[in-house]
């Protein structure tokens, strides 16, 4: 999983921008489906988003913490144990993507995406798809550019989905 020396654009700028685009897509579809409004009503909250201006540091830290929990705690160790030590480098990409894909499914499966689709139908689909893209995007970026890039991708997504959308 060693990464070549990459510049700041590859590690921060592009992942941030890609995350922001994904967040904008999620925001745009939610303006049409009003899915978050339904979720907030179910939880008896005025909004699912933390209020400005504390939304900025809390979602920034949340993005880092979630990235470490979901991907950085297990993925490098399992990759090392299976691909490097056990298989001696054979099929290392397949090992990475198998482990990474399983980890990428943790958030969508544990945060109620499937139940939401079963319960509310099509309105919950765009958000679940964006969740999957967010997690698989992080697996891809962790391999391509490292932990900072994977964090930056989620920070960009949260910046639009939680911070900007929280202001609308």
């Amino acid at each position, binding site marked *: 999983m060693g990464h070549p020396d990459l510049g700041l654009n590859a590690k921060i700028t592009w992942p941030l921008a890609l995350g922001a685009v994904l967040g904008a897509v999620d925001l745009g579809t939610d303006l049409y489906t009003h899915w978050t409004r339904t979720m907030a009503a179910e939880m008896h909250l005025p909004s699912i988003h933390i209020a400005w201006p504390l939304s900025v540091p*809390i979602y920034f830290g949340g993005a880092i913490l979630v990235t470490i929990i979901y991907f950085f705690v*297990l*993925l490098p160790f399992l990759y090392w144990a299976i691909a490097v030590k056990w298989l001696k480098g054979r099929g290392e990409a397949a090992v990475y993507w198998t482990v990474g894909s399983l980890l990428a499914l943790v958030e969508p499966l544990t945060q109620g995406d499937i139940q939401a689709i079963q319960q509310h139908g099509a309105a919950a689909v765009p958000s679940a798809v964006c969740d999957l893209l967010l997690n698989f995007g992080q697996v891809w970026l962790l391999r391509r550019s490292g932990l900072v890039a994977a964090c930056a991708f989620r920070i960009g997504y949260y910046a639009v989905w939680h911070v900007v959308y929280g202001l609308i």
Partner: protein
Amino acid sequence: MSKAWRSAAAYVALVLCLVGVHFVLADNPEAARSAAQAAVFEWKVPGIVCGLGLVSLLFSI
């Protein structure tokens, strides 16, 4: 600076960001949407997660 040191420095910077958020949330506990959300940034959770992440860092460099 070697690549390993740069990776370690980047990881420490990310952890320091979490420490900063801990203090922000400690000063503004009403900001969280739920007690569970606030608990995520108490010392215990980030401490365990960042400790495990530090071990993972050794496998990734």
